[in-house]
Every structure is written in structure tokens, then in C-alpha cells.
């Protein structure tokens, strides 16, 4: 369809933009930056800060002026006002700048301004805009309305003293994620951002995806920092410190060091982790390959033997949490395979010590994840202690790892690349694409094709049907005449419509329209994870995604079952069988189960 275009004048420059464009975006097209604070491109403009005000020039009402354009005394908010044909906009004049500055000073007057101790120092939008406006002192008396910090979950911390009430987190949690854990509570100056009914986050519907923390402009919602636990382990001479890094970390960590989003830094991360003092460096991409063996054979078994379909992927603990709260009617559809993080940790405390003759009691496993939900996953139930110990000891987000590397004075940008350690370190291209939406599905299809047909590889190794940023992607894959119907959904709020389709099929007593469904709670998959460098937009996500596919393309092996270390694992330790094939060890170490959870935990 032809996009209808409009033209308008901004600061005297004519711009042409599609109808429906906001004044903010139209100005961007004219290379003019209107300052914003509450606005985030992922979200519908909430219009709460009032920083983005601009002036419209309107025909004078004075007949003597003959319709001359004069500045309107009223200002418009650029973020939420649609540009219209023939509009004249002034984005900066001394009066507008003064209004913006006063609003900013008011916000700062109610902010703790303890930037030096703030987790967001350096990536805070309030700090940046205060610097842009050259604020040196705040003329109004400081008044911070104090409320206790909510650190009830192991994943995220809510410090409402710093909250500027932009509303992003609630919009993310409600609209993007369909969780509804956060909402403005109270009115006027008493307004706070918090879970409803005065409960703590841990008692709320929160699924710990951390998307609120990745969108918060300031340090009001942030990851629960556990770096000190890791420093302690590294200092302990008795401990054997093992570490794993997730697929999505390698294409985002560089951003914290000024690199372009999507820069592939796998080898540098391995090197930095060794410099930090880890004894062995493993890669979650290896266990992603293991996941394909487990989940893939589980799918083939259900698909060929008439088991419960559709099979739902289980790699994302926030999705698991959501299902257990909001869609318990899908419990039996869930793959019992653990997430790659939990598989690697279980193997790091069983297989690895068995092969190296060390005492598993001495092993400490740190896991570097793009994800805050994984911090909660490691204690979700007894299955997370399959080795007799807590399988994963500490989860650090990408953001926390960046801070550790900086604190250790490691010159990350110039670091020579290293390799991962043996047994749990080799990965295929299929393992690395777990970091993007559609990746688990694509990896599974590559292997399933070979296992079902007995052929060496599918006609095309790339399954483009499952790639891209559409919220729900569906396709029918032809495996030599066998049709497999699949769906891929990412960003939690997109999932319910897929589940509702299945519910409809169930009600009508027909075969479910999908056989296999992949779900990732975060937009774009884990590359857009809640523990990644903050404030990602679709532009950033696209670059990170590109980085992941580049890693896949340059891999010699691109199918999980070809991974020699995976083959060795099954041969030497797991009795040659996956869980679905009746392997008891694999079942014990690599699988879990699910239960229904209360949406709110009142008085429990």
C-alpha cells in the first residue's frame, strides 16, 4: 500500500514524513533532536515528563496581521502529537528551553541525585539530559519521598526513591509483557510505581523478565547485583570456579565498552573471564546443543508416537513462570527439558568432575546471562539441585559482568581472543542462534530433519520462516512429505493469542494447528533480554541479531547433533540416550517439571 505522505516545516526546514508520524520523529527526519525523557521508541508515548515541548506557529488572530504566523503561547508535546500537513513547528527558542530546564530542575529536586552510587550511572537518561542542559545547581529545595526498596525477588530491585514516574515500566509490564505486575499506585505527589495492592514484587504476578529494568531511564528498577558473591568465590582458594556464557551475551557486552551493538566478542569474553580468575570457561551454546538433543528427541517422540502436542519450548524461565501463573492448562505441553543454563550447570557439577576426577562439592558455577529471570530460575525448585548441590551458584547479567571487567581493570577492547575450555565449551551454529527469536526452533528443525529423514543435512540450513521481528511467526515445514506446523512468538504479550488458537482447537476437538511452538519472553529473544545493556531499541536488537547470525554462518558445524563434545557427552556419560529415549541419567540431570502457581501470593 502506498504510504500517504505529509509535509511540514520544522525550524523553517521542510520535511516530508509518512502520515501518522509524531512531531518528535518528524524532527528527527529533519536532523533535529528534541530532548525527551519519558519517551521510549518501544512504547506508546505516555507523555508524562513534559520535556519534549515544542511550539507551533499559528495564524495570528489579530486581523491587522493578515494571517501572519505567530508563535502559539501553548506548547505541544512532540512525543505524542502527530505531525500534520502544513504544520509549522519551532523546537527551540529561549522560552521553550527555559520551560524544559525548569521541568528538569523540578524532577532533579525530587531525585536523590546520588549518581556516584547508582547502578545506572553512565547509562542514565536523566543524568545525560541534566548534563546536556548544563544543570549545575537545582534552585528548588530537595525533597525525596522515601519508600523502602523492594528487593523481594532475586532478579530485580525496585528503588522507588529514584523513580521519575515516566511510566515506561508499567507500559512494558502490562502491554509488552502482558504480566500486569506494575502500576502507578496513589495520586499526585504520593504516586509510586509498585505492584498492585501493596504487595512486594515477589508476591506479585512478576515473571522476573527484567524488561522493566531494561527500559527504566534511571536507576529505579535494576538487576539484583550479585557480583560480590562471585568475587568471594573467586577469592576462595578451595573453590573451583567454573563459568558459562549465554549466546546473547557475546553480541551485547561490547556495548558497555563503546563497541557497536552486535559486535561479536566471544573470544574476548573467554579471555576476560580467565583474567577475572575463573578456572574453566564454558559456553552455554554447548548446552544449547544438548537442549536440541533433549528437546528435539522429545518432540520427535511426541510427534511420531502421538504424544501431547503442541510441544512448547522451555528455555526461557520467564515464559515458564508466566505459563505456570497464567496458562496452567499448558503444563503438559511444556517440554520437560531444562533451560541450557541449567543443563550446563548440572553437567558442570556431574559430568565434568567425573571426567576430571575432582570433588563436585568444591565446584562453584557462575552463569553469565542476558537475563534477570535466570537469577530466579536457579532456585525455582528441587530439580535445580539435580547434582545434589545447587546446580548454578550465581547468575550474573551482562550488565554485571561488564562492571566486573571494568572493576578488574581489564582492557576489554584490546584483549586477544581465547578459546573455551574442553568438554563443555564447543558449540555449533545451532547453539548460538538460541540467542534470537526463532533460534531454538531453527536449531531444532535442522536436527529434527536429519533425525527423521536420516539425511546428512536439510536442503537449506537456514529456516528463514522463523527469523525476524514479527511478534508471531508461523510456518509449515515440509520434512520430506511430513508436514510440521510451527509457531514462534517473542515478547510475552504476543503469546496469549497463539495459546488462544490452541485453546480454540481444543474446544473444537480438532488437531491443534501447531505441533511445536517456541516462546521467548523478551522482544527479539534473549538478545533483547532484561539483563542486557539497558535501553535497547529495535535498531539495537537488529544489530545484535545480525551478530548472532554471523556467528552461526562462520561456524563450521551448524547442527547440534554434529557437535563432537555433545556426541562425547552422550557416549561417555549419558549411556548414549537422551531423556526422551529413556536415558535415565539424562532424564535426571537435564529434565524438570512444572506446577501451577498463584498469580498473587497473598498472605502466603
Amino acid at each position, binding site marked *: 500500500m502506498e504510504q500517504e505522505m505529509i509535509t511540514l516545516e520544522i525550524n523553517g526546514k521542510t520535511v516530508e514524513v509518512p502520515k501518522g508520524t509524531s512531531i518528535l520523529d518528524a524532527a528527527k527526519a529533519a536532523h533535529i533532536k528534541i530532548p525527551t525523557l519519558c519517551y521510549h521508541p518501544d512504547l506508546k*508515548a505516555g*507523555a*508524562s*515528563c*513534559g*520535556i519534549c*515541548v515544542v511550539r507551533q506557529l499559528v495564524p495570528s488572530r489579530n486581523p491587522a496581521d493578515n494571517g501572519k504566523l505567530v508563535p502559539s*503561547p*501553548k*506548547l505541544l*508535546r512532540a512525543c*505524542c*502529537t*502527530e505531525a500534520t500537513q502544513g504544520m509549522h513547528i519551532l523546537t527551540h527558542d529561549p*522560552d521553550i528551553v*527555559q*520551560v*524544559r530546564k*525548569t*521541568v528538569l530542575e*523540578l*524532577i532533579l*529536586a*525530587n531525585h536523590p541525585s546520588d549518581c556516584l552510587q547508582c547502578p545506572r550511572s553512565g547509562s542514565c537518561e536523566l543524568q545525560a539530559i541534566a548534563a546536556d542542559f548544563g544543570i549545575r545547581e537545582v*534552585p*528548588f*529545595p530537595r*525533597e525525596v519521598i522515601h519508600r523502602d526498596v523492594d528487593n523481594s525477588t532475586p532478579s530485580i530491585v525496585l528503588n522507588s526513591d529514584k523513580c*521519575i*514516574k515516566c*511510566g515506561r515500566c508499567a507500559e512494558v509490564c502490562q502491554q509488552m509483557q502482558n504480566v500486569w505486575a506494575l*502500576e*502507578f499506585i*496513589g*495520586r*499526585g*505527589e*504520593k*504516586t509510586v510505581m509498585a505492584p498492585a495492592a501493596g504487595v512486594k514484587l515477589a508476591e506479585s504476578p512478576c515473571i522476573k523478565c527484567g524488561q522493566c529494568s531494561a527500559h527504566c531511564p534511571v536507576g529505579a528498577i535494576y538487576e539484583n547485583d550479585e557480583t560480590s558473591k562471585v568475587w568471594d568465590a573467586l577469592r576462595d582458594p578451595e573453590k573451583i570456579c567454573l563459568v558459562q556464557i549465554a549466546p546473547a551475551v557475546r553480541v551485547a557486552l561490547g556495548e558497555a565498552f563503546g563497541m557497536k551493538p552486535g559486535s561479536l566478542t566471544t573470544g574476548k569474553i573467554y579471555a576476560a573471564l580467565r583474567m577475572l580468575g575463573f578456572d574453566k570457561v564454558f559456553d552455554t551454546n554447548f548446552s544449547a546443543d544438548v537442549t536440541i538433543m533433549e528437546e528435539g528427541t522429545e518432540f520427535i517422540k511426541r510427534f511420531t508416537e502421538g504424544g501431547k502436542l503442541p510441544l512448547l519450548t522451555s528455555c526461557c524461565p520467564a515464559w515458564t513462570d508466566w505459563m505456570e501463573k497464567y496458562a496452567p492448562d499448558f503444563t503438559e505441553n511444556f517440554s520437560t527439558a531444562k533451560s541450557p543454563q541449567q543443563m550446563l550447570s548440572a553437567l558442570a557439577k556431574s559430568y565434568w568432575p567425573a571426567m576430571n576426577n575432582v570433588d563436585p562439592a568444591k565446584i562453584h558455577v557462575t552463569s553469565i546471562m542476558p537475563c534477570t529471570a535466570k537469577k530466579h530460575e536457579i532456585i525455582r525448585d528441587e530439580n535445580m539441585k539435580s547434582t545434589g548441590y545447587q546446580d548454578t551458584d550465581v547468575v550474573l547479567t551482562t550488565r554485571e559482568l561488564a562492571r566486573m571487567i571494568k572493576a578488574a581493570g581489564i582492557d576489554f577492547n584490546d584483549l586477544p581472543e581465547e578459546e573455551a575450555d574442553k568438554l563443555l565449551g564447543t558449540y555449533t551454529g545451532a547453539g548460538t542462534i538460541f540467542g534470537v527469536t526463532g533460534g531454538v526452533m531453527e536449531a531444532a528443525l535442522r536436527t529434527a530433519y536429519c533425525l527423521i529423514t536420516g539425511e546428512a543435512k536439510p536442503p537449506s540450513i537456514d529456516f528463514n520462516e522463523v527469523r525476524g521481528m514479527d511478534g508471531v511467526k508461523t510456518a509449515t515445514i515440509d520434512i520430506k512429505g511430513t508436514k510440521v506446523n510451527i509457531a514462534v512468538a517473542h515478547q510475552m504479550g504476543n503469546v496469549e493469542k497463539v495459546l488462544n488458537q490452541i485453546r480454540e482447537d481444543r474446544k473444537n476437538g480438532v488437531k491443534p494447528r501447531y505441533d511445536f511452538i517456541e516462546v521467548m519472553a523478551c522482544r527479539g529473544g534473549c538478545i533483547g533480554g532484561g539483563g542486557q545493556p539497558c535501553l535497547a531499541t529495535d535498531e539495537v536488537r537488529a544489530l545484535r541479531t545480525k551478530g548472532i547470525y554471523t556467528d552461526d554462518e562462520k561456524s563450521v558445524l551448524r547442527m547440534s547433533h554434529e557437535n563432537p563434545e555433545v556426541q562425547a557427552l552422550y557416549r561417555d556419560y549419558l549411556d548414549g540416550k537422551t531423556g526422551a529415549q529413556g536415558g535415565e541419567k539424562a532424564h535426571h540431570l537435564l529434565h524438570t517439571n512444572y506446577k501451577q502457581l498463584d498469580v498473587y501470593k497473598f498472605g502466603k
Partner: protein
Amino acid sequence: MDRSTLEGDPHSILEAMTIAGYAIGASKGFIYIRAEYPLAIHRLQVAIGQAHDLGLLGDDILGSGFSFDIELRFGAGAFVCGEETALLQSIEGNRGMPKPRPPFPAVKGLWGRPTVINNVETLANVPVIINKGADWFNKIGTATTKGTKVFALTGKVNNSGLIEVPMGTTLREIIFDIGGGIRGGHQFKAAQTGGPSGGIIPPQFLDTPIDYESLAKIGSIMGSGGLIVMDETDCVVDVAKFYLDFTVDESCGKCAPCRIGGRKLLNYLTKITDGRGTLDDIKQMEAISDAMCKASLCGLGQTASNPVKSTLKYFMDEYLEHINDKKCRAGKCSKLIQYKIDPAKCKGCTLCARKCPVNAIAGAVKQPHTIDQTKCIKCGQCEANCKFGAISHG
């Protein structure tokens, strides 16, 4: 006054809404009313029932083929829920918070559909205009503002109550003719129109004809039609503080200028009425007022600083007196009042010392007494009781 229309003539509103529905092709109308107005609600319910019985509401009204129904929705009394976008949110069952406009409700309103929102007084005019014709209506009022306006006239006037005057009537006519002048022989000092966010109008504008334009020009608004009259015993700084106290409480909390700015203004006003104000405070209040007007999302924040702006403009001398001389000429700001005993008049009878609830007065019998200003709570008991007129305040 809208409440009295609803209580006194609910059918006029039902009729007007039905006409409005017919005009725009709507099939459903809502009356959003505070739950605290039980009588108005009751009468509306009765009227809706009667209208149904008479075939004036419901399917195929009077055989016209047009169907229309009206539903009541109750608000919890939040001031901001009178703002049209917040009102729509509230009807939809959401938090009553304003939304950016455009899109205006007429384009995208209730549940995303085009919606017309009108005030009770506006609607009450509709049946009359239709019956008597536009020409008749246009004869009333000024060149730009037609018709009449109902005011709730209160304050220091002899006759207070609801009044209806043609647009363009001057404040002087309202206050001195209809209102019967200032109570107790006091002096007119100021009038405030438009509810809590209206401006405060000084005596030099008594002869301004009241319509939308001229009120805007002198820094006030028509708003809810409140009209409060003040005399020289009212302190304008204290009045501004009173209104800010209300709007700060009623801000929905969404936007920074309104949520934080309102509180800061109130703090400065409190500081000034407490005698701790500085000249710099005035500068900051001006900056905040301007930012609130220009950067707030809805009418509440945009107008909340009007009482401050208008008093700064017309009564700066009183602010300066509070700040520089620590004086409140109206004697309203209790922290600025000092009770003093004139030693020449004091007979040393000790009555005041005995009446003082905080023992702030000392002095030997038959000797002039003195008041310890650090203890005095400005209750005025001493002055009221002194038989020799020795005690005064200022």
C-alpha cells in the same frame, strides 16, 4: 451549580443529550456524576425511568426510528476526573489519568469511538435554544460569548447563592447590584473566578465585562463558574496557598511539572506566609508557574498556578510585605502577627497573663506586662480579654 440543575431539572439534560445523540448519530449517552451527590443521582434515575416510560428514551423514540439510551456512571470525586480524557478513562474502568490530545475525544473517545463531552450547563441550554431559536439566544451576551452564565457567588458579599447573568455583565454589577455589596461595610479587595485554578482579579477590573476572552486577558478563567469575593481581611498570599493546597492534592501525579511544581509552589507560599520567604522565592515561583502552564498535560496542571500568577502580578506589594517586612496586612497569616501590650495603657491587672493558654505573658501586679513572642501562639485571647484596650496585633 451543575448539581442543582441535575436536581432541579434533570429532564433538560436527558433531552439535550438525546438531541445531541441524534445530531451526531450516537446511540448511547453517559452521565458521569460524583457518587457523593445522592439526591442528583436519585432524581436522574427517576427521570430516566420516566423518560423510558414515555418513550422519550430507548428504542425508536417517539416513532422517529432513532434509539438512544442514557446510563449513569459514578465517579469517586477526583477533581481530575472532570478533565475529559481522564473522565473517559474513568468510565472505561481505568485509572482516571489524562491522556494526550490529539486525538481529541471527538475523534477517538470512549472505547476508541468518537465521543462528544459536554458540561451540564452547556446541555441545559440546548432545549431552550432549540425551542426559542438561535437568533433569540444570540441576542444575549457579548459579541464573542453568547448566552448566560450561572455563577456560584460566595465570599464576603451580602447576598450569596446561585445567580444567572447574561455574558458580558461586569463584576461590579454582580458584586454590588446582585450581591448587594461587601458584607459588614468592608472594602472590596479581589474576586476569584473559575474554581480552584482561576485567577484572582483586583479592583481595577471591576468594570470588565465577563466573557471568555476578557477573563483570559486578566489571567482568570470561567471554569466551573465559581465566584468568590474577598475583602481587605483576606490575604491574597494565603488565598493562593489555599487553592494550591487543593490542586496539589488533586493532581493525578502523571506529569512532572504539575506533580512536583505544584508542591514546590505550595511550599514557597507556606514559607512566605510563615515569614521565612525570600525575594529569590518569587523568582522561582514565577519560573515554576510558567513551566506548569506550558508543560503540563491537562487543564489541571496548566491552570493550577493561576492563583499564584495573578496574585504575583496584581498584589506583588503584599508578597513583598510578607517577605521584607514580615507583615500580613490582612492579619490572616498568623505566624506574622505580633500581639503587643502598650505599656502606657496597661494597668498591670494580670488578666491577660491568666487568660494566656501558654503562659507567654509575664509582669508584676500593677506593672506593665510583656508578651514573650517565642511562646505566643497568636490565639488572641489576651487582646479579647484586656479591659483597657492595651493589647493590639499587627
